[in-house]
Every structure is written in C-alpha cells, then in structure tokens.
C-alpha cells in the first residue's frame, strides 16, 4: 500500500521506455535476435502473472480462469483478424473486451452466491475454460477442431520486423499490467481486496462493497489477460484448441505468482522472470523433459521454505540476495556461461540468488528484525 506510490509507476514507465529502444540498439550492441524473443516471453508471462495476481493475489479468490481469458484473446484474433479480416490492432482490443465480458459473466454469477467461495470458485473458473474449448471445437466459425493459422495475417508495417513488433507489443501490455497492479495495490480498491482476502464477511460489515470490488478486479485481470493472449496468438502462429485451452497458462501464472509472492505487485514479476529464465535455459541445455519437473519441484520447495514469496524475502535480505546473485554470476562466468549467452549467465545469478534466500535463516545469522510495514508478511509470523 504505502510501499508503492506514484513514483514507483513513473520509474516503471521510465524503465519500459528504455526497453522500448532495445530493438533499435540491438545490432549496435551486438545482441542476437533471440534476445528480443526472449524479452517478449518475459513480458508475456509478466503480463499474465501480474494480471492474475491483481485479482487472485490481492483478494484471495483462487482463479483458474486465466486460461479462459487468455483463450478468449487468442481466439478473438484468430476469428476476427484471420477469418473476417478485421484490422489486427483493433482485434487486440476486442480480445481484451471479450475476455472482460467473460470475466463479468463469471463474476456476476459466482459472486452473488456466498456458497461459491473457496474451492468451488476455483473449480468453476476452471470449468469455464473447458466449456469455451468445447464450444470452439464444435463451431466452425471459431475453430471447428481444425486450428487457425494466425501466421497468415498481415502485420502492420510501421511496427517493424516481427521480433521488434512482438517485443514492443509485449512490452506495452506488460507495462500496463504492472502499472495496473501497482495502482490497485495503493488504491482503496486494493485495501478492500486485502480485507476481503483476510475476512470477507467482516470486510462487508465494515462497509467494503465486496461484490463491486471483486467484479472490478476480475474485469481488470480478464481484460489484460485477453489483450496479452490476443498478441500472443501471433507468437503461437498456428493456434489449436488443445494448446490454447491447455492447463499451461493458468498453472504457470499461479506458479510464478506464488513463487514470487502474491502480496506485492513485484512478486509475480520476480516469479515470472525467475521461472521463464530458468525454464528457457534448462530447455536450451537439453533438459526439455524435466524442466517442468524442476520448476514444479522449485515451487514445492518455495511453498515450504519461503511462504511469503521470493520478492518479500529478497527485500528482507538484500545482502544475501546480492551476494547470491554475484556468486552465481562468478560461478557462471567461470563455467563459461558467457560463451553461450548473456541469459545463461543471468540464469546462474538468479538460480544461486534464489537458493541463497531460500536457505533457513539460522544457517547464516541469528534472526533479523521483522519487516512489518503494510502488506509485508515475514517468515517469523508465518
């Protein structure tokens, strides 16, 4: 709440502005094109995880609806831009709106009924994605089970070549998602959501309009997830129901947010960066089969060892994080990671930093003073 203010969003914006010029200076800096695609991958997951967290992390309502919102975005482009020749950029916006309408329907139905809190809510949102997948499968106007080739769509020229375009589009949505999360966290809406997470009935009796707040947050989540999905359809190229409505998106946003921490907007960002980077490097190193296994294992470890999430833990132990990261860089450098890619080197740094903050406190020093400003929760209270 007070830990994030307007300046945070200005800094975020400035940071995004610098990244915006990355494609322009890429050749001068002698970075491979892959950096742009990797950057997009980060942006995509940051946008998805941040948007998920804006509703679920802040309100405590566990949603699997991310797949439905994402899928609505993807198929908006597939249907409108590919099959009906609508202008591509416009279909991105439509994708967000379609997802928001789906969010609204879920919210109006589910939030009216007190019985549908907790697990039932999670299952309902999961079911929505399944229903959407079936509808898409049987209706030829949407998919009909054949898949839709989005790569045939004509890209607007002023956005540059494909890597530059997707990088910048991803950057815009990720920035929007992060600034939205920041704004919610410091607003009355955020306070209301936090109180709902702790005790919804009490929040309601204290004058928090819980129904309206939950709907608002869910709409924001759905809208951002939808736009992000719409853009992602270009990256997928050939969209199929099995891929789009798989459990992958809802599962990964949960993984990233919980890993990074759900109580602060920065949590999903940290989680997304760590998971995407490590996953990418593991795949590259030839561990495709077990990379999900490793990220899954990491999640289990994290839930046990770092309940409050990586971000708050790192913030509470900045020294250890910095030392871990630096040590990782040195180790990576010594092992010749830089010969492969800068990303590999960073992955070493992140990996060791994560391990360093995960180790129990007692291994290093006697307990450090607890940080308890605002939303932060510290391990000692856990």
């Amino acid at each position: 709440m007070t830990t994030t203010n307007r300046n945070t969003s200005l800094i975020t914006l400035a940071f995004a502005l610098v990244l915006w010029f990355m494609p322009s200076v890429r050749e001068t800096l002698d970075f491979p094109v892959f950096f742009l695609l990797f950057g997009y991958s980060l942006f995509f997951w940051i946008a998805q995880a941040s948007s998920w967290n804006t509703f679920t992390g802040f309100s405590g309502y566990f949603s699997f609806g991310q797949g439905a919102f994402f899928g609505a975005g993807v198929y908006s482009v597939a249907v409108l831009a590919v099959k009906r020749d609508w202008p591509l950029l416009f279909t991105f916006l439509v994708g967000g709106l379609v997802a928001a309408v789906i969010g609204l329907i879920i919210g109006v139905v589910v939030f009216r009924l007190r019985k549908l809190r907790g697990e039932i809510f999670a299952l309902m949102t999961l079911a929505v994605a399944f229903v959407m997948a079936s509808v898409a499968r049987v209706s030829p106007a949407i998919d009909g089970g054949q898949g839709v080739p989005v790569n045939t769509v004509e890209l607007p020229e002023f956005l540059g070549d494909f890597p530059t375009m997707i990088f910048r589009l991803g950057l815009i949505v990720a920035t929007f998602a992060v600034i939205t999360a920041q704004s919610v966290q410091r607003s009355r809406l955020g306070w209301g959501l936090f109180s709902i997470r702790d005790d919804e009935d009490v929040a309601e009796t204290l004058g928090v309009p819980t129904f309206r707040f939950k709907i608002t947050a869910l709409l924001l989540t759905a809208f951002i997830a939808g736009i992000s999905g719409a853009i992602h359809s270009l990256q997928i190229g050939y969209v199929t129901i099995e891929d789009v409505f798989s459990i992958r998106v809802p599962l990964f946003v949960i993984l990233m947010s919980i890993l990074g921490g759900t109580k602060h907007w920065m949590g999903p960002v940290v989680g997304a960066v760590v998971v995407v980077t490590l996953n990418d490097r593991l795949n590259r190193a030839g561990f495709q089969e077990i990379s999900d296994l490793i990220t899954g294992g990491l999640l289990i470890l994290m839930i046990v060892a770092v309940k409050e999430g990586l971000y708050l833990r790192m913030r509470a132990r900045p020294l250890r994080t910095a030392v871990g990261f630096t040590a990782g860089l040195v180790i990576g450098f010594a092992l010749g990671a830089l010969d492969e890619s800068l990303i590999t080197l960073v992955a070493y740094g992140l990996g060791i930093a994560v391990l360093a903050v995960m180790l129990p406190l007692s291994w290093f020093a006697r307990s450090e003073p607890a940080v308890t400003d605002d939303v932060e929760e510290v391990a000692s209270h856990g």
Partner: protein
Amino acid sequence: MLKVESVTSGYGAAQALWDVSLEVAEGEIVTIIGPNGAGKSTLVNVLAGIHPAWSGSVQLDGVELTSLPAHDVCGAGIAVVPEGRQVFPEMTVADNLEIGGYHPSVRPYRNETFERVIEIFPILADRATQLAGSMSGGEQQMLAIGRALMARPRYLLLDEPSLGLAPVIVENIFEVLRQINREGVSVVVVEQNVVEALELASRGYVLEQGNIVKDASADSLLEDPAVRAAYLGV
C-alpha cells in the same frame, strides 16, 4: 431507535430464529444473553446484514436495514464487532483501523475519528505498524472495537466480546464500552458471560432456541431465579 420486529431466519431447513423482536433506544446499553446454539450469532449476522432474514424487519430510525446490502448497513449507523475478534491478521493495525473508516459516509472524518480511537485505545497507536495477527487476544479485541468505532456508529453491536479473554481484560473492555456509551453510542452486547453483561447493561433479553423468552431490566434478570439457575449455576 433500533427496532427488530418478528425476525425469523436460519440455514436451509434448520430454523435458528423464531419470531425475534427487540428494541434498543438511543443511548442505551442492552445485552442479549443465551446459551450456545440459541441463535445469538445468527441474530447478530442478520442485524449486520450478512445473513438474510427470512421474514420480519430490522429498522434503524425508520430505515429498513434488511433490504440494504451489508456494506451499507454500517453506513446507516450500525457497526459490528464480530465474534472471535476477526481482525484482518495480515494487515497492520493502522490499516485495520483505516478499513473501519471505509464507508463513504464517514471517510471525510477518518483522521479525527482515528484520533478519538487512539485516545480510547492508546496501545493501538504503539502497535500501528504491527501486523494485527501478531497481537495478543485482548489487543485484537481492542482493535476490533476500535475498527468498528472508525465507522462512527450510533449503534455498536458486539458478538461475545469476552470470548477467550482473561477476566481482567474483559473488565477493562467492558469499562471502555461504558465510556463509549457515555459519549452517546448505543451498545448491544451479545454474551454468554452473563454476570458481566448484565452488570454492564441496563436491560437484557434472554434468547433461547431462537426465541426471546425474557425481556427485563438487567437488575431484575440478575435476581431472576430461572436465569440464576440456568446461567450462574446457583
């Protein structure tokens, strides 16, 4: 005047309140006593608007509350201190209080209300940045009351404020309730701690199996042989 008329309510097929009527005048302290399962908490939840009444009416100065959404009931002038305290454990003390002053009708006054709450419970100022869940039971109860006061209620409704607290703390909290009442807030205490509650209140209702079975001055209830036998074990 808080006027409850012929309220019935329950859960599915199980009826918990049968025709409950009661009145609380401006400036009064009234207690509702009764054994476990009498329907006390259901009654509180109906008054707070978080559990629907099947029939009957709850009126505050002529305004019907049963048709209001729960988050507007507190705007109408009733604040609830829920059973078992129920502070927001993962929010700080200051944020808990801030949430109490959430309703648009009281938000403009929240700084001055905050000052007043801090005067009543100075400990909350000391603990402002601490997580509410890390405080002791008594402190949490003070926070729950302070949070309710942030809504500037005319009627303060407490569900078993003595639950799980040491006698000396209960005494302290009831003393604070007297003080709050002297400042013009009507107090309704739902309690199992019958002696303390009747010593605090001027009038009492006895709720048994969803019915108001007695309605009398607190003193006469304290003397009532049936009440003494049932609740005081004498």
